[in-house]
C-alpha cells in the first residue's frame, strides 16, 4: 500500500492546482459559457501546453499514455476551478477508446487532439438503453470496403465541437467503434448546451459511409474508456465538492444573523460536518477507483468504478444541496459560484452513468474472493 504520488504526478497536480487558482473561477467560467461551443480557446490552448490533452493519447501514437490517476489529479483541480472545457468528453474519453493499433494508424488525428487543434466526441448512448454502452441498436453494415452506419445516438457530449465523432455500431453480435467525420453525408446533429456547462448533441445516422479502417475500437475499449471517464469525472466533482465546503465554511464564519455568525448555530455546524465527512469518504472512493481503473481484471475494474460513481452520485448531490441551503437565498443566484457548482454537480450525477446504472452494474459483477 503506497498512497503517495510519483514526482511526475505531484508536478502534474501542482501545475493543475495553480492553473485552476490563477486562471479559472467564476469570471473565466462566465467567459467560457459565452465562448464558441462553451469552450474558451485560451483555456483549451493552455490544456494543450500543459500536456493534459495528450495524457490519454497512447505512447504508441506519440502521447503521454498516462494512468487514470494522472488525469484524475488534473480533473480534481479543474473541478475546484469550475472549469467547463471538455477535458473528459472532448479529449480524454475519445483518446482512450482507441485500440493500440488504431491509435498508431490515427497518430496524426490524435496529435491534433493533443495539440488542441481538434476535438473529438464519443457517441455510444442510445435513448432506449439509457447509460448502457452494451445497448447498441445502431448498425454498421459491411458493404465492399466500407461500413454503412445507421441508427441514432443520444446525448453525445461535446459532439458540437468535435471534428470527428466516434460512433458505436453493431455488426451482428459485435459492437465496433467507428470514426465518423462530422460533415459525413447522412449524419444529422441536433446540438444543445447542457446543464452545468458544455455541449452535447443527439445524432441521426442514415447509412453514413465510412472506410473499413475507420474502426478504431470495440466494446471492450469503449467500456474501459468510459470507466476512465467516470473516474476522472468523479475526481472533477470531488474538486467541486471541496470548493463548496470551503465556500460554505467561509460563509458560516462571516454571515451574521441575530447578531452572531450563522456558523454558531449547531444545526448548521453539524450540516457542515456531514458535508466534510461525506467528502472524505468520497475522496477515499475516488482514490480506490483511480487505483483500479487501469486494472486488467475487468470485473475488479467495473466493481471499483461503479462503486465510486454510484457513491459520488449520492454524496455530491448531498453536498451541493446543503451548500445551497446553508447559503440561503444568495446560494440560489447566478451571482455566486455556489449555484454554478451546484449545476455541475447535478450534471455529474447523469454523465457517464447515473447511480442506478452503476448500482445495477456493480450488482452484476462477480464477487471477489475475500
Amino acid at each position, binding site marked *: 500500500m503506497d498512497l503517495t504520488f510519483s514526482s511526475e504526478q505531484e508536478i502534474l497536480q501542482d501545475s493543475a492546482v495553480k492553473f485552476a487558482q490563477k486562471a479559472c473561477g467564476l469570471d473565466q467560467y462566465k467567459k467560457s459559457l459565452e465562448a464558441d461551443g462553451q469552450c474558451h480557446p485560451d483555456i483549451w490552448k493552455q490544456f494543450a501546453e500543459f500536456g493534459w490533452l495528450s495524457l490519454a493519447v497512447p505512447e504508441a501514437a506519440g502521447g503521454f499514455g498516462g494512468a487514470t490517476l494522472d488525469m484524475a489529479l488534473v480533473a480534481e483541480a479543474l473541478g475546484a476551478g469550475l472549469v467547463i472545457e471538455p477535458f473528459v468528453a472532448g479529449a480524454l474519453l475519445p483518446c482512450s477508446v482507441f485500440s493500440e493499433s488504431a491509435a498508431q494508424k490515427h497518430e496524426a488525428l490524435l496529435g491534433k487532439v493533443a495539440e488542441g487543434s481538434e476535438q473529438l466526441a464519443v457517441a455510444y448512448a442510445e*435513448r432506449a438503453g439509457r447509460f448502457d454502452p452494451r445497448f447498441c441498436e445502431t448498425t454498421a453494415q459491411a458493404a465492399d470496403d466500407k461500413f454503412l452506419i445507421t441508427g441514432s445516438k443520444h446525448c453525445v457530449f461535446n459532439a458540437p465541437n468535435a471534428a470527428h465523432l466516434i460512433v458505436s455500431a453493431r455488426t451482428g453480435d459485435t459492437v465496433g467503434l467507428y470514426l465518423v467525420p462530422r460533415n459525413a453525408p447522412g449524419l444529422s446533429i441536433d446540438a444543445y448546451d447542457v446543464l452545468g456547462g458544455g455541449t452535447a448533441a443527439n445524432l441521426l445516422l442514415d447509412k453514413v459511409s465510412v472506410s473499413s479502417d475507420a474502426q478504431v475500437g470495440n466494446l471492450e475499449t469503449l467500456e474501459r474508456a468510459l470507466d476512465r471517464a467516470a473516474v476522472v469525472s468523479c475526481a472533477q466533482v470531488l474538486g467541486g465538492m471541496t470548493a463548496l465546503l470551503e465556500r460554505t465554511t467561509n460563509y458560516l464564519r462571516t454571515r451574521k444573523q441575530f447578531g452572531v455568525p450563522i456558523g454558531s448555530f449547531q*444545526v448548521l455546524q453539524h450540516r457542515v460536518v456531514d458535508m466534510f465527512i461525506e467528502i472524505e469518504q468520497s475522496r477515499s472512493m475516488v482514490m480506490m477507483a483511480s487505483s483500479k481503473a487501469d486494472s486488467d481484471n475487468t470485473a475488479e475494474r467495473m466493481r471499483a468504478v461503479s462503486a465510486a460513481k454510484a457513491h459520488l452520485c449520492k454524496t455530491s448531490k448531498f453536498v451541493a444541496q446543503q451548500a445551497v441551503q446553508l447559503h440561503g437565498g444568495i446560494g440560489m443566484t447566478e451571482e455566486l459560484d455556489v*449555484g454554478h457548482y451546484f449545476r455541475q454537480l447535478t450534471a455529474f450525477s447523469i454523465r457517464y452513468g447515473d447511480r442506478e446504472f452503476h448500482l445495477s452494474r456493480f450488482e452484476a459483477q462477480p464477487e471477489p474472493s475475500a
Partner: protein
Amino acid sequence: MNFDYSPEDEAFRDEVRQWMEANVDQRPRGAAPGYRAEKDVQFDWERKLAKKGWLTFAWPKEYGGTGWTATQRDIFETERARAGAPGTSPFGLMMLAPVLMKFGTEEQKKRYLPAIANVEDIWCQGYSEPGSGSDLASLKTTAVRSGDKYIVNGQKIWTTQAHWADKIFCLVRTSNEGAKQKGISFLLFDMNSKGVEVRPIVTIDGHHHLNEVFFTDVEVPVENLVGEEGQGWAIAKYLLTHERTGIAGVADNKAQLAKLKATVARDPVLKEDPHARRRLTELELDLMALEYTNLRTLARMDQGESPGPESSGLKVKGTEWQQAATEAFVEFGGHDAMAWHKQVEGVDPAYQTATARYNFMRAASIYGGSNEIQKNVLAKILIGL
C-alpha cells in the same frame, strides 16, 4: 370519522373539473410549481378566473369572494393543479388582501381590494433585505415621516415578480427605539414611484423570477400606512399564521406525482424497473401522509377551529416532498434532462424542464422562513426553553 367528501362537495368537484377542462389551455407551459408561468400566461389565466368569479376563491363573501369552505378551496386547488393550470400569484390575493381585511381602513380596502380581484394591480412583497434573511426583524429600510409623507430609503431583495408589479407592500423601519420588532411598519406604494429601482436576480434555474429593489428617497403618502406605526411585525406574523393549508402544496404535489407516474409508465425502460417503481411508491406514501395531514387541518377549519398541531410540519414536509419529486424527474430523465434551456426533439415534455425545476425548487426550503427556522419555532413550542 371518515374522509369521504359530501355529495355537495362531490358535485362541486365535478363542476370545477368540468370548468377546468373547458378552460385550461392544455399546451405545456412549464407552469409546474417552482417554475413560474410567464407573465401573460399567469395573468391571462387569473383574468379568466376573475371573470368566472373564482379568482378570489379564498376570500370571504363580504369582500366579493366565493366564501367557500376550506374543503372547497382545497378541491378547487386540486382540480386547478390537476388540469395543469398555474396557481394564483399570492402576493395580492393571499397576502395583502387578508392583511387589509383585518388591519386596513375602509378607504384602503376600497382602494386596493377590487383592483386585486380584477387583476388590475399586480403586487410584490418587500420583506427580506441583504442583511436580514432569517433574522427579518433586523431590517434596515427606513421610512421617515415628513409632513404627510414617508420618505423611504433602503433595499429589498429576493422580491418575486417585482419586475411585473405595479405595487409593493413593504416592511419598513419607522423607529429605532426599543425592541427591533417594535419599530417596523407596514407600508404600501407604487413601484413606479420616483426612486424605486428594480434589478433582476437570475437564479440557478437560469431564469429571472427574483429581484433586488432599491429605494432612494421614495415619497409615500402617510395614508398608505397599514395599521399603525410599529404594527408591521404583528401584521407580518398574522399573515404567517393566517393560511396554513396551502403551504404544503398538496394540490400541486398530487398533480406532480400523477405526472411523474405517467412519465414512468410511458418510459419503456423505467416502467419495468423495480427500483424506479419503488421510488414512486415511496413518494406516493409520503404524499399520502402529507395529504391526509392537510385534510385534518381542513376539517378543523371547516369547523371554525384554528389549524391544529398537525399543521406545523406541513411546510417542512411539503417542501421536502417537492424537492424529492423534482429530483426524481431529473434522475428519471437522465440524458434527456441534460439539455439546458432548449427544447430538444423527442424529449418527453416532463423531462424538458426537469433540471431547471429541480434547481429552482431548492429555494422551497429557504424562502418563507427556511426549514431550519420553521424547526426552531416548533422546538420552542415543543420543548419550551
